[in-house]
């Protein structure tokens, strides 16, 4: 932890009321939180040459004051600058209490280091704004791949979902500015609905050790934070203009923050992105354009003992889905797999047609905090979220402009947290959270609902603590309980209700029956317990050892429970299961970091055992008038994931450095003793960096991204008899399981700074992705059956800080 410079200001306003000028003020300066005395605080009286320094016991004396009203400013190395108004009519005895956390937080945020996001012993990593800015024109999922052990599950290259240590979707919580995102994260082609440009920094917590954010983080937690306003009179902002050759895209983002010494602040931020069809090395990826419009506004008051924040953000994106990946039936899929190239390639266009997604997300939030002397800080938050997802397929006749899926998910959350920090070396958090969620699938789609109407109620309570045992040992731990009730109204086809055998088990839930369908009203309750315990041992400065054990419990999400029907974008029939219960994970992780002169390293092995892990796997074929479709059904198995994330960096001198990160995860289905599906292949990223501050802060980086072939995958191939192009009945094995070959890409980054205007800095960045224009496919890209991944891309970025 850094030690902050001592800055002293003294403001002293006087209205002279009497002539006697020999009064004094004496007292003690204390820490607001635990009442401990603060030595070396400087007290000064504005307008007068009167200063005092508190002694070892926090005592001070200010002499030579006349009767009147004064403003005294007190500063301390680790404290917020504080002002107190004092009325003097005689000699006064007055103790002052200083706050140190706000200043600490600001300073840390600016540096983006050591941000404590609720876990001491869990493995976590922070992405600073300078890294995030490079991805201004991309997405959160793209930026997070910078973190060792984080990969992404893609649909093309515009729908990017983060994967933490092999787990994704509902197993990874995304906390956007303090609020848990409720953006239909269950779907593999549903990317997080937030603008990366709204975040000042992003923290990735691998595992469930940050209980404050939820007990169901089987994979981990991603926390994005909006910029924190400083408590001083200031106005600053930045604008980033980006352009890229691949997709011929432009992106613009701008933000402005005005803060006052009173603690009041206002901020605003907006982003627009516009891109056309992307290109693989050998062909245009038709219909992969993107539009994105986002903005956020906020204001608040950041006072000594209380404050509030009001925040609203809006996200909208329209994303084209590769036309060639939209297929009609199983023989179309076989054709695509066999041909190795997309069967629909047109000239470049900015137009976006079906299939596409159009998603909006609103987040409104009110937070309030109050600090209590010798106790701690109470936070109250209310948030409102509405997520509207429309998916458009290629349809016939009057329906062609209608979405095939139109879901509106509304969530209200009320949460409270009390931070107890009155005892030295102990911090504890106690909190409670309730939420109400409603899903409304619009029936005007004319297509049976993939996700039904439902209402969901949740309530959770938690307690966490961290304790400094000694200067070297720090312990943390916590427990959490969550209750969830889901109350759904779901139509099933009579035939599928029967074939699933639901009638015997759930027949009493049926509300009404018609000729072809029946309406069911399942109301399911889930009780989830989660906990964590761990320790951090500081071997010596820059040498740390962390141990953590955590257990998370996740109830099945609505897709896992209720899906039943054709998923067009994948040409599979997905079947949920009403019988699913929650999955429970037990994760142990160790992180060892150290530094020997220019060499620094981090080693983070982990073992995650998951009982009743929910997976989706093929269970046969279903025949329709459109041909055959593979059926994928949700089920549960006991599973384990073990892996290691490694990081090493070496600074040759002050100009050159080399960094490398490596991640390996091994997932196993313990019941059938075979690998788990969709585990990221081992990958290694190496960056050679050069920097020369004297040359306009020149930075150059050459990066190699190598992804090995995933050799561990379950064999889900199946045999199907279909009519081939020659009209013959053929029996073929559909190789859906096969993994793509290893690949290695080179990327170039470069930037220089220029001082412009008076106090502004212009940063010009030039980047080349996939310099060698290598054709490759990635195992975790759902479009790998249909087309290659992105080809070479030149990007330019202009950033103006003011």
């Amino acid at each position, binding site marked *: 932890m850094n030690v902050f410079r001592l800055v002293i200001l003294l403001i002293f306003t006087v209205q002279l009321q009497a002539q006697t000028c020999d009064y004094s003020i004496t007292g003690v300066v204390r820490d607001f939180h635990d009442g401990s005395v603060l030595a070396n605080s400087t007290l000064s009286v504005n307008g007068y040459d009167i200063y005092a320094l508190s002694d070892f016991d926090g005592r001070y004396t200010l002499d030579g004051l006349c009767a009147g009203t004064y403003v005294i400013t007190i500063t301390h190395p680790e404290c917020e600058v504080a002002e107190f108004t004092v009325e003097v009519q005689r000699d006064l005895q007055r103790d002052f209490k200083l706050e140190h956390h706000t200043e600490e937080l600001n300073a840390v945020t600016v540096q983006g280091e050591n941000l404590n996001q609720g876990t001491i012993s869990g493995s976590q990593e922070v992405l600073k704004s300078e890294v995030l800015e490079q991805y201004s024109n991309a997405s959160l999922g793209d930026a997070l791949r910078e973190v060792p052990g984080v990969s992404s599950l893609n649909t093309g290259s515009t729908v990017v979902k983060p994967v933490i240590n092999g787990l994704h979707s509902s197993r990874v919580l995304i906390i956007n500015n303090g609020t848990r995102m409720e953006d239909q994260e269950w779907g593999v082609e549903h990317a997080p609905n937030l603008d990366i440009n709204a975040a000042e920094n992003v923290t990735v917590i691998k595992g469930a050790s940050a209980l404050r954010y939820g007990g169901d983080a089987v994979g981990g937690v991603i926390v994005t934070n909006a910029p924190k306003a400083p408590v001083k009179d200031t106005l600053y902002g930045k604008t980033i203009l980006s352009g890229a050759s691949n997709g011929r895209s432009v992106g613009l983002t701008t933000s402005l923050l005005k803060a006052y010494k009173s603690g009041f602040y206002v901020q605003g931020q907006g982003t627009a992105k516009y891109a056309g069809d992307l290109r693989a090395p050998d062909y245009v990826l038709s219909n992969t354009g993107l539009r994105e419009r986002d903005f956020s506004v906020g204001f608040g008051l950041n006072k000594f003992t209380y404050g509030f924040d009001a925040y609203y953000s809006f996200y909208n994106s329209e994303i084209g889905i590769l036309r060639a990946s939209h297929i*009609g039936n199983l*023989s179309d899929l076989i054709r695509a797999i066999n041909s190795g190239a997309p069967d629909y390639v047109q000239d470049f266009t900015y137009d976006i047609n079906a299939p596409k997604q159009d998603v909006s997300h609103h987040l409104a939030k009110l937070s309030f905090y109050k600090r209590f002397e010798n106790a701690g800080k109470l936070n109250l938050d209310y948030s409102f979220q509405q997520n509207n997802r429309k998916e458009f397929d290629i349809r016939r006749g009057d329906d062609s402009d209608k979405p095939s899926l139109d879901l509106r998910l509304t969530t209200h959350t009320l949460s409270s947290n009390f931070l107890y920090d009155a005892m030295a070396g102990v911090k504890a958090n106690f909190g409670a959270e309730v939420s109400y969620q409603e899903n409304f699938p619009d029936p005007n789609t004319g297509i049976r*609902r993939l996700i039904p109407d439902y209402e969901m109620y949740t309530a959770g309570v938690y307690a966490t603590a961290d304790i400094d045992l000694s200067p070297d040992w720090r312990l943390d731990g916590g427990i959490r309980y969550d209750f969830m009730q889901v109350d759904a109204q779901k139509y099933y086809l009579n*035939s599928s209700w029967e074939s699933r055998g639901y009638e015997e088990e759930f027949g009493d839930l049926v509300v009404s029956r018609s000729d072809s369908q029946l309406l069911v009203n399942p109301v399911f309750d889930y009780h989830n317990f989660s906990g964590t315990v761990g320790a951090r041992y500081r071997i010596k400065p820059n040498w740390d050892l962390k141990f953590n054990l955590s257990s998370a419990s996740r109830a099945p999400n609505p897709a896992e429970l209720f899906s039943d029907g054709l998923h067009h974008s994948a040409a599979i029939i997905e079947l949920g299961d009403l019988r699913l219960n929650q999955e429970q994970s037990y994760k142990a992780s160790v992180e060892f970091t150290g530094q020997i002169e220019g060499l620094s390293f981090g080693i983070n092995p982990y073992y995650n055992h998951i009982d009743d892990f929910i997976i989706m796997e093929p269970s046969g074929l279903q025949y329709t008038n459109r041909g055959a479709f593979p059926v994928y059904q949700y089920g549960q198995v006991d599973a384990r994931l073990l892996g290691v994330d490694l990081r090493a960096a070496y600074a040759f001198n002050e100009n050159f450095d080399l960094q490398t990160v490596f991640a390996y995860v091994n997932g196993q289905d313990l019941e059938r003793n075979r690998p788990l599906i969709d585990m990221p292949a081992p990958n290694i990223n190496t960056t050679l960096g050069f920097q020369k501050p004297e040359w306009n802060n020149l930075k150059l980086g050459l990066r190699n991204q190598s992804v090995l072939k995933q050799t561990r995958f379950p064999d889900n191939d199946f045999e199907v008899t279909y009519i081939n192009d020659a009209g013959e009945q053929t029996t073929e094995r559909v190789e859906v399981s096969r993994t793509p070959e290893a690949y290695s890409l080179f990327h170039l980054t470069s930037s220089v700074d220029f001082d412009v205007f008076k106090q502004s800095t212009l940063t010009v960045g030039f980047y080349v992705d996939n310099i060698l224009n290598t054709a490759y496919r990635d195992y975790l890209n759902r479009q790998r059956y249909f087309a290659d991944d992105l080809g070479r891309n030149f990007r330019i970025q202009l950033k103006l800080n003011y």
Partner: protein
Amino acid sequence: MKATKLFALALVAVIGLNSCSSDDDNTPEEINEEEVITTITVTLAPQTGETVTLTSRDLDGDGPDAPVISISGALQAGMLYNGSVLLENETETPAEVINEEIQEEADEHQFFFQASSDLNADFTYTDSENTYLNNGVSNPVGLTFNLQAGTASSGTFTITLRHEPSKDAEGVSEGDITNAAGETDVQESFDVVIE
């Protein structure tokens, strides 16, 4: 404390505002999919003799039940048949005829007819986009066609409807599906006998 009051007031307002909108507790409506093709009927009318019909009916659409296939009889060797295709959605009453939509979008649809190598039959289109759209385009659609039965044999007759095929690709307008691309809207096979 002013901020506290302001916050409380805002909170109440927001909660109040939202509670008004949660009154839609009524039962969601049932959706009967309009686009589903439950029934494919291929009618083969010979110059002389019995008309043969081939039907595939799948009333639960994407549900687990497989289509039920019925074939009215055998084809006569050497006979020329006038063929027509009828697509219906029988989940509605009366059944909705989907042919109209195909005709309106004749430029985006094409049927393909295939006989397995052991079945002696040839197919020719007898309609074109121009038949339905008056657009002067001679690319076939396939709602009507001719089937020329050859010598006695038995095998598989497959009918496929592609949405947004590349009609200009090589061989596609002659009924060769190999380069047609697009996505499959209908695909069904019938085991037929030529006597």
